[in-house]
């Protein structure tokens, strides 16, 4: 096991990793920007170093500074958390080359899965279920039109280097294709510095279902059930739950089997998430793979009892998986509500000072956060300030706990998504588990704040 690791992140995920370190008896080194000098992760870690000014490009994304910090504190490994450098293949490669263990997959896997059209191509050749679409990137409008007429409209044009909803264009009919193709390419070039795009079938009201996988350094790979992340707006997830109300045991086994095959097809290591679209007929298609720990990982931890972050560190240290596939049991139901510092109606960030914070408690409730009364939410970073996670024996019990937790939770000083969460948990369709990725936008239109 490692003696000491550096956490190249901030906020709740840095705190989450430090907690895992403490339980494993591993010393932790926090890095921080000048804006985070008094942050919780800085105080909880065994050591802390300032690595740059508030601008993340000069601090949390500053590869030379982070590696230098790891070197002078004699860290053997770096946990990247999510965001910042977590899916930066170059960073993983530099870590590999200087003998610092990157806690995650190899730079090769990151690069492969980061190139969405390439990933599609490889998986489709192996007979794995990718969305109907182009094989690799498309070079011209004519090619786009040919692919689109073959798979049928509507289609979506996506950037190869994209993710998180940027660089996408939905095309409903052929007349719109030429314009959409040009704008998607221009947007991809401007946003990602790479104009490569590909075409996929566009599903109108799918569910976003993702499967958590773990793979050790010997390639032993297991799946840990699915997460339903359909409640999202502009590809930003807001509520996640597991198990999905739309997935039965048979589909779960099938999703798990395919997710493991996808991971093995790219020789994946460590924790990862395979994202699928599930259509109304319960057919599922590979969308992309997230090569890191995810924001919503706690709900999987709640129902499986497996600590994913500790497992990540153990795997990186060369240890075999601590559980076998047949020992993975889904126990009860879990929800996560993302508490963001933002206006609930327009989803615009709302930085400021937290004048009062009270976390909910009691049975089945977990709060992953780095905020406290009196702390400042800097405007430089993500608006996620807390994750409210509940666990219950059934979906009904978990929902009742979440309603109670949302009622108890107090955040004053900044606007948050808490009022929106409270309303969603009162919604009959949501309560019955009847929703798709179109749910939230429709909900916000019907119930303006």
């Amino acid at each position, binding site marked *: 096991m490692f003696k000491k690791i550096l956490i190249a992140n901030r906020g709740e995920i840095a705190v989450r990793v430090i907690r895992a370190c403490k339980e494993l008896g591993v010393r932790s080194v926090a890095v921080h920007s000048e804006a985070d000098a008094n942050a919780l992760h800085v105080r909880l870690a065994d050591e802390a170093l300032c690595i740059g000014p508030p601008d993340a490009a000069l601090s949390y994304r500053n590869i030379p500074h982070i590696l230098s910090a790891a070197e*002078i504190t004699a860290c053997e490994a770096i946990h990247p958390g999510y965001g910042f450098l977590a899916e930066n293949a170059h960073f993983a490669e530099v870590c590999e080359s*200087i003998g610092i263990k990157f806690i995650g997959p190899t730079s090769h896997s990151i690069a492969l899965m980061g190139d969405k059209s390439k990933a599609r191509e490889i998986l489709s050749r192996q007979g794995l279920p990718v969305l109907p679409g182009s094989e690799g990137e498309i070079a011209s409008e004519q090619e786009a039109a040919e692919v689109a007429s073959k798979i049928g409209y509507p289609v979506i044009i996506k950037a190869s280097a994209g993710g998180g909803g940027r660089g996408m264009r939905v095309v409903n009919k052929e007349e719109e294709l030429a314009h959409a193709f040009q704008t998607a390419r221009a947007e991809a070039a401007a946003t990602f510095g790479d104009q490569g795009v590909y075409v996929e079938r566009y599903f109108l009201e799918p569910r976003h279902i993702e499967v958590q996988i773990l793979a050790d350094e010997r390639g032993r790979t297991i799946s840990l059930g699915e997460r339903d992340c359909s409640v999202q707006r502009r590809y930003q997830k807001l509520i996640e739950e597991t198990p999905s109300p739309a997935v039965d045991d048979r589909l779960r086994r099938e999703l798990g089997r395919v997710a493991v095959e996808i991971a093995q097809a790219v020789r994946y290591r460590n924790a990862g998430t395979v994202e699928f679209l599930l259509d109304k007929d319960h057919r599922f298609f590979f969308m992309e793979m997230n090569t890191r720990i995810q924001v919503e990982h706690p709900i999987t931890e709640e129902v499986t009892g497996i600590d994913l972050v500790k497992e990540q560190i153990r795997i990186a240290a060369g240890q075999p998986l601590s559980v076998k596939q047949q020992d993975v049991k889904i126990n009860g139901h879990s929800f996560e509500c993302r508490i963001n510092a933002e206006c609930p109606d327009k989803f615009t960030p709302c930085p400021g000072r937290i004048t009062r914070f009270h976390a909910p408690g009691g049975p089945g409730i977990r709060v992953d956060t780095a905020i406290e009364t009196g702390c400042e939410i800097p405007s430089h970073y993500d608006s996620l300030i807390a994750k409210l996670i509940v666990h219950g024996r059934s979906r009904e019990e978990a929902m009742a706990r979440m309603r109670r937790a949302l009622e108890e939770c107090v955040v004053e000083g900044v606007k948050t998504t808490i009022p929106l969460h409270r309303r969603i948990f009162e919604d009959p369709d949501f309560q019955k588990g009847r929703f798709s990725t179109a749910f939230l936008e429709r909900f916000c239109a019907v119930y303006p704040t």
Partner: protein
Amino acid sequence: MKRRAPKAISKAKAAGPKPAPDALIDPKVLHELVELFQAAGVSDLEVERNGLRVRLRREEPGSSASVREVTVPVSDTARASSPSEGLAAAQAGEGLVTVTSPIVGVFYRSASPENDPYVEEGSYVKKGQVLCIVEAMKLMNEIESEMDGRVIKLLVENAKPVEYGEPLFLIDPMAGPEG
């Protein structure tokens, strides 16, 4: 912690204008510069070209010109990694200026263990003069003074790790070169 002794200044290859292949300036060019300097009758002359910087300065009015220093190629990598293109300097109390580290690394007072420290407490430094080295990822980054002044206090011990923004020196910019 494993510590390496400071090594020679690295010549990092980076994008942008290439530094001159050698640290040493052509003696002929230097001679011409000195002649030009003397003829012009100025007290200070600084020439920078292809990453080489030469400064000529008269010690006292009337005395002959002396070559003060020939600076080695400026590391482009070091520049690129320092956020404020040089030093972050903050005003300390009583007119003193705090020189802070622009990078995370290991602080060294001299170019190598055999060399004398770049500066001591009480040294008078000129703008652009090297104060110390901060080593990051085996790159020796020279930290230059952003002002003329006297080094009042050294705040970090040799070979100690420093973080971004850590105070390294206190400099009095009002102090003159004498006394």
